[in-house]
């Protein structure tokens, strides 16, 4: 079994804890001195860097949430100058605007190192040909896997998303052994391969899938192994933290969270109290060595568990379980985060539409479908089908530009969608995940 960084990955626990504490202390001092935003937060919570003496003292530090990254002025949020920044990435915001994260070269290197360790632990190496079918661009999926795969010396096929027939052709022609994609996309390729008379199991060298960006089950894992001959390896990360960061080793018993780079906690989503190993709660992350943007006790909104026992593979770093849900109403459609508030933002900026809408999510076949049903305002009814279709298309375009996925739009008669007295339940999710 190969380790990318054996000294670090197999470090005895007590040594790893000491290293983490060293990084944590350095981080807290750095933030206090260089981040006006987090300095204020600490002052407000009555916490000073000198109060952090042990790893458990991390609970003294105030939480960070997604809103912080959106609302804080970059001047106050970024801890480095533009000259030190080498990258920006974006992630789905809860309104019309995406959340932006900045990276220094060191941030990019650490991100790459994290991915390199992860995919190596899954048994991938320089002899592999990796097709990266995550979106390249502002989203972190494509470039994250790309850099990690390149770092370990594998051959990268930067396919990005879409053009599925061509993806299959490349997999066959280039002797691709690993695919990095959402699990639903892999299943979709499986379905397509049968339509074009190809067997992924028999006609290709595809053996491993680095699958993430959306929740998936062990049942699906078994199915893709039996049907496609592909070993499904779970990977997790969010743009705010860096991007895709942690994946399962070949034991497939949880995703190793590298302790020198990250301190992970599980908290009760309602009280914020720390929970123990194996207990289900909200994942809270502190990125110990990030330079550009502070990420301290960041509430990811994802529900999962953390195991701290040494893995059967010998690695001592804690393991993240499968994500089993969200704290908020965020949806994941084809690997993309979608907030109902984004849909609301787009719809409300169209004067022709009423106030009521509904989001229907379904999965017929392998891929997710999203339908947005919205009421037409009576005053905006035009006796012209071409113009009504034009209105529908305009809304669909605006949704696609904001959500980064295609949504179908349905104009409905006013008064037909349900009204709510308390909290509106606008999402109907018909998928059985």
């Amino acid at each position: 079994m190969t380790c990318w960084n054996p000294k670090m990955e197999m470090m005895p626990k007590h040594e790893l804890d000491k290293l983490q504490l060293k990084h944590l202390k350095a981080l807290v001092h750095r933030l206090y001195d260089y981040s006006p935003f987090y300095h204020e937060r600490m002052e407000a919570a009555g916490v000073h860097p000198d109060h952090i003496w042990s790893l458990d003292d991390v609970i003294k530090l105030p939480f960070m949430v997604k809103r912080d990254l959106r609302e804080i002025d970059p001047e106050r949020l970024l801890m480095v100058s533009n000259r030190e920044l080498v990258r920006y990435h974006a992630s789905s915001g809860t309104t019309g605007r995406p959340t932006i994260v900045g990276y220094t070269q060191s941030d990019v290197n650490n991100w790459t190192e994290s991915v390199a360790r992860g995919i190596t632990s899954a048994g991938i190496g320089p002899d592999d040909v990796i097709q990266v079918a995550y979106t390249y661009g502002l989203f972190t999926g494509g470039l994250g896997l790309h850099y990690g795969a390149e770092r370990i010396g594998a051959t990268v096929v930067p396919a990005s998303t879409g053009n599925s027939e061509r993806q299959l052709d490349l997999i066959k022609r280039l002797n691709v052994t690993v695919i990095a994609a959402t699990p639903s996309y892999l299943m979709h390729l499986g379905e397509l391969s049968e339509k074009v008379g190809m067997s992924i199991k028999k006609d290709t060298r595809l053996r491993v899938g680095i699958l993430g960006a959306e929740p998936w089950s062990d049942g699906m894992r078994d199915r893709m192994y039996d049907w496609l001959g592909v070993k499904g390896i779970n990977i997790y990360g969010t743009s705010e933290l860096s991007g895709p960061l942690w994946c399962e080793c070949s034991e497939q018993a949880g995703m190793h969270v590298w302790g020198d780079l990250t301190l992970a906690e599980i908290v009760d989503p309602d009280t914020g109290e720390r929970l123990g190993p194996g207990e289900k709660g909200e994942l809270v992350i502190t990125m110990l060595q990030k330079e550009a943007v502070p990420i301290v006790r960041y509430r990811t909104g994802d529900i999962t568990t953390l195991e701290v026992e040494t893995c059967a593979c010998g690695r001592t770093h804690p393991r993240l379980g499968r994500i089993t849900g969200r704290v908020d109403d965020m949806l994941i459609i084809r690997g993309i985060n979608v907030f109902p508030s984004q849909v609301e933002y787009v719809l409300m900026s169209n004067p022709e539409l009423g106030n009521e809408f509904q989001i229907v999510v379904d999965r017929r076949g392998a891929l997710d479908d999203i339908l947005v049903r919205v009421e037409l305002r009576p005053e905006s009814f035009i006796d012209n089908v071409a113009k009504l279709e034009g209105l529908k298309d305009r809304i669909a375009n605006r949704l696609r530009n904001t959500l980064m996925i295609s949504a179908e739009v349905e104009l409905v008669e006013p008064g037909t969608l349900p009204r709510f007295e308390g909290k509106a339940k606008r999402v109907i999710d018909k998928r059985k995940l």
Partner: protein
Amino acid sequence: MVEREKYHIKQLSIFSENRPGRLMDIAGSMKQAKVNILGFTIAEGSGYGVVRMLVDKPEKAHEMLTKEGHVVKFTDVLAVKMEDKPGGLYDLTLMLRDAGINIEYAYGYRNSPAAVLIMRVEDLDRAIDAILDSGRELFDVSHFK
């Protein structure tokens, strides 16, 4: 100077979701209001349709439909007389083309010994003049009571 107003026929246009029972609801409203439907067509969009109707009591129909929660508005259309024999439509459309009148939508029915073409055009008054100048007949509102 021709009085054109009387040739503006009030057609009802109703935005309707494409699901079973919707048409029945509209027809039910007409029955309840004791309104007689004289002409009728549906233009389909994706997932919805626009129901267009000519009725004998347009104001009453509009009132009832609105009360029942439908999205309805009036659209002015023209009713042109055609000859009820082969070539009737051709003669009319030839004239319209020569006069440069563009039809947005139309539907027709036969009412022996005549045939009627209901037309929606962009410039109603220009079309009225062209049609009357060509010697053709337009039905006025009194015809639809």
